[in-house]
């Protein structure tokens, strides 16, 4: 009986700890990426964004997504990959007007994605 209570409470405590950590980790990763995208957005808006700027944002995302694969569905990561590749391609060709729209989408996704995994009533049902 005591063993059962201890194992249940231990599992519950570990689970709650893990949930809190995961929630914080997801928000932190997406906040950092969102910040980098905002900087890129401003540069595109000023038409000063370079190939290196786009490359560094892409590199940042590549390092983050390796860890995110463990925590969120891979389809969501592929979705971000798709929009980022399009935006980078347009920046490489200096198509700033079109790249702006793509980065706008990316900003929206990085804002809303962590919310989709947070503990909210609308997500439960």
């Amino acid at each position, binding site marked *: 009986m005591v063993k059962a209570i201890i194992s249940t409470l231990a*599992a519950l405590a570990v*689970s709650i700890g*893990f949930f809190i950590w995961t929630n914080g980790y997801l928000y932190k990763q997406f906040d950092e990426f969102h910040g980098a995208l905002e900087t890129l957005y401003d540069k595109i808006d000023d038409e000063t964004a370079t190939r290196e700027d786009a490359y560094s944002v892409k590199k940042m995302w590549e390092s983050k997504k390796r860890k995110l694969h*463990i*925590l*969120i*569905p891979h389809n969501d990561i592929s979705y971000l990959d798709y929009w980022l590749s399009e935006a980078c391609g347009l920046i490489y060709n200096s198509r700033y007007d079109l790249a702006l729209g793509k980065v706008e989408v990316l900003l929206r996704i990085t804002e809303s994605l962590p919310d989709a995994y947070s*503990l909210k009533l609308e997500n*439960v049902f």
Partner: protein
Amino acid sequence: MALVFIRTAVIFITLLAVMRIMGKSQIGEMQPFEFVITLLIAELACIPMADSSIPLLYGIVAIIAIFILHQTVWLLDLWFMPLKTVICGKPSLVITRDGVDGYQLRKNNLDVSDLIESMRTAGYFNLDDVYYGLFEANGVFSALPKEQLTHTLPVLLIDNGKADRKNLKIAGIDEKYLQEFIAKQKTKLKNVLVMTVDSDGRVYFQQKGKPYKILRAEVKGQW
């Protein structure tokens, strides 16, 4: 991740409630919550394995959630007796010294043919072979048998006010004879809860809300 946990808990509670409402005919030999866990664990383990777009961690967290819920239900089951009844159900006495209890059968979504089938599985072929018969909370039929068992195989002629034409044919009884037989008991077909007859013409006859009677009838069928 907390989302997976909550979603799993919601599914668990929903399934458990549904299984409890469905009654004993649906659950075999497991307690309702054990059955729910068996259903869920199999699915939870399979989905992340089969769908590579879902992180395996989702399956693991859901299974841990199931473990916590199982332990919680088990502990509640031990500590609070009223909760044990709510979660696991309680035995239903379906055969008393007065015969079949139609209300208890209905409550468990069973009919007389289901009861007879469960009795046969337990080794009793006549409804009056037992003093008491009950369905345990896990769906198993238990009985207190009489000292002398009958050694015939009865067929069910009337189940809850409805005549079974196929069995009437097997017993070689026509509907006119059945109507006369019922009229002799000063009742109507719709008021008969159960009527069986064996090859010796021994009839188990019970009206709704009344004790059973053992009567005789002419049978022409051979079985």
